[in-house]
């Protein structure tokens, strides 16, 4: 008798819990579906607005290097080049630096309290608004690039990357500031990945007689590689989409150039600059450029995900 009573009460309890659980399930379903729908909706509306330009320029949009709204000629190759170039150089500079900082912060070279402070300061870089980076770039980086640019063009002007004339607002300036902007992303995620490496691996490495640096390069870094790759991809995505600071520093030129010391332009900067006064076909062409930027970031993320899965599979054996 008493046993059955207990049973029914637990049954009720269970049913109640099920009910609550279901409500929560519905809620999470709705919110996650809403996210997906919003993304699809955004892409769809951009695609719709871009359609006239897609129909008239087609694939030529990506290879044509002339962007001239007053003649209705639209090609984004210089901007693709600028976006990829500035983000690529920024990563090239920030990745070794960021990983080095991450190693430093995850090892016990310094007392934990000091490491905590350093870590906090590096991560604080991410909290600075991008317009402030832009202003700082104008005040500090541009004069530096201006004074060194002359020297570079004089002595290395034969290289297409340092072809004269040297200007302060250039691809190099934008890349330097971008590198600083993505540094916290790389450092924070790489550090987390390094800290997460199982202690047993480190101990095992020491046990077979490896030095600290051998352990770092041969055991810790390969194990943390997926995290570092993820950090790189996120940083690349951030650099590609960065608008304000880059628009303030890169010189916003639609001309195709290979020189790092010449003004260049990025897709994000193009959109920010020209949308306000655009009309007719130019709006459509800008939407096409926006679609391109969205697809580029999407591709980068997909590529990153694939690399991540591949590396995870190969190191699964180690763990």
């Amino acid at each position, binding site marked *: 008798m008493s046993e059955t009573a207990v049973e029914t009460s637990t049954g009720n309890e269970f049913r109640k819990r099920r009910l609550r659980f279901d409500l929560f399930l519905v809620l999470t379903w709705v919110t996650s579906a809403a996210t997906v729908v919003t993304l699809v909706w955004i892409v769809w509306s951009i695609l719709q607005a871009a359609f006239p330009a897609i129909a008239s320029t087609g694939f030529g949009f990506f290879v044509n290097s002339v962007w001239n*709204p007053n003649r209705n000629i639209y090609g984004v190759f210089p901007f693709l080049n600028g976006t990829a170039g500035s983000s690529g150089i920024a990563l090239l500079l920030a990745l070794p630096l960021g990983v080095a900082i991450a190693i430093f912060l995850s090892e016990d070279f310094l007392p934990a309290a000091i490491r905590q402070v350093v870590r906090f300061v590096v991560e604080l870089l991410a909290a600075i608004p991008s317009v402030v980076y832009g202003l700082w770039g104008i005040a500090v980086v541009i004069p530096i690039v201006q004074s060194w640019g002359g020297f570079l063009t004089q002595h290395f002007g034969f290289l297409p990357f340092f072809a004269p004339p040297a200007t302060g607002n250039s691809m190099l300036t934008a890349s330097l500031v971008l590198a600083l902007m993505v540094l916290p992303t790389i450092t924070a995620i790489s550090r987390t990945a390094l800290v997460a490496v199982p202690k047993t691996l480190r101990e095992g490495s020491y046990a077979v007689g490896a030095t600290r640096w051998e352990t770092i390069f041969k055991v810790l870094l390969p194990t943390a590689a997926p995290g570092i790759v993820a950090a790189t991809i996120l940083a690349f995505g951030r650099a590609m989409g960065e608008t304000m600071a880059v628009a303030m520093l890169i010189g*916003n*030129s639609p001309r195709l150039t290979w020189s790092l010391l010449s003004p260049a332009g990025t897709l994000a900067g193009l959109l920010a600059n020209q949308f306000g006064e655009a009309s007719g076909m130019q709006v459509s062409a800008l939407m096409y450029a926006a679609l391109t930027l969205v697809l580029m970031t999407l591709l980068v993320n997909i590529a990153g995900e694939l690399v991540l899965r591949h590396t995870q599979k190969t190191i699964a054996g180690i763990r």
Partner: protein
Amino acid sequence: MKINSFRVALSLVAVSAAPYSAPAQTKLNGAGATFPAPLYQRWIAEFTKANPNVQINYQAVGSGTGITNFTQGIVNFAGSDAAMTDEQIAKVKQGVVLIPATAGSIVLAYNLPGVENLKLSRDAYAGIFLGKITKWNDPAIAKTNEGVKLPDTAITVCERSDGSGTTFVFTKHLSTINSDFKTQVGEGTTVTWPIGVAGKGNDGVTALIKQTPGAIGYVEYGYAKNNKLTYAQLQNKSGAFVAATAESGAATLNSTQFPPEILRAWPSDPDAKEAYPISTFTWLLLYKKYDNKEILGALKKFVTYGLSDGQKFADELGYVPLPKEVAAKSEAALKSVE
């Protein structure tokens, strides 16, 4: 417990959705050109001081966006440096009245320490912006500046990266005076310059010029004045070298002939000897018909104020006051709004 919190949430939504009693105020919304925005804001501040029952918003979002919002009927009026084209006007059901509201000059500001009163001939400044003249001591510049020690510095041309009425007026002028410019670059709110560095907005170009030795760029007279930039005297059609002032700008505007049916014209190359070569009007765009009488009344009152008393703020803010004849034409056009 759960249900209770839901009820609380629901009642909160209900409260926030409830209409709150609106004050007895007429609200006017406008959007458009950034160039006249400081003057319009001043007008709004002064006008609403005298007419506290009217509230006016003007958002400086750019002429293009202003025209789009105006066509969609989101705003009550708009501002545009490029007026409106016939095609754009045809899209507005209620009809459009263009009202020249104020005017401004575009100056070529430069950064050459020690060089003041630079005089640039028509060939020289067109050549600079075409990328044909690349050094400050080029003979084309030296010829009109005898006795001035011009440095062997490279010229850095500074231009606008964003679409802009300033670019539109400047390229229109260059296309008028130079056939190479017309074929190679052409006119428009955004053009592809053959050379140079671009900054966003008048302030962006101003910053570029201030920071780069050897720079030259086109900015609104008001910005150059407020930022204490040095700017060149330009050669006009008659051959005289003229500096940008309220008087030389007014001489340019006076020479403008409007077509009879619409107040839309650009003095892209004035003839008068004392006229500054690059000055332009900027327009307020109004609908021909307003359904709401309160909005119509307030708007007419506001624009009338701007065209009369409001003009006195123009000079101090770096604009060119409307010449009397043009102001009279603008007021006549305003009367046709109903």
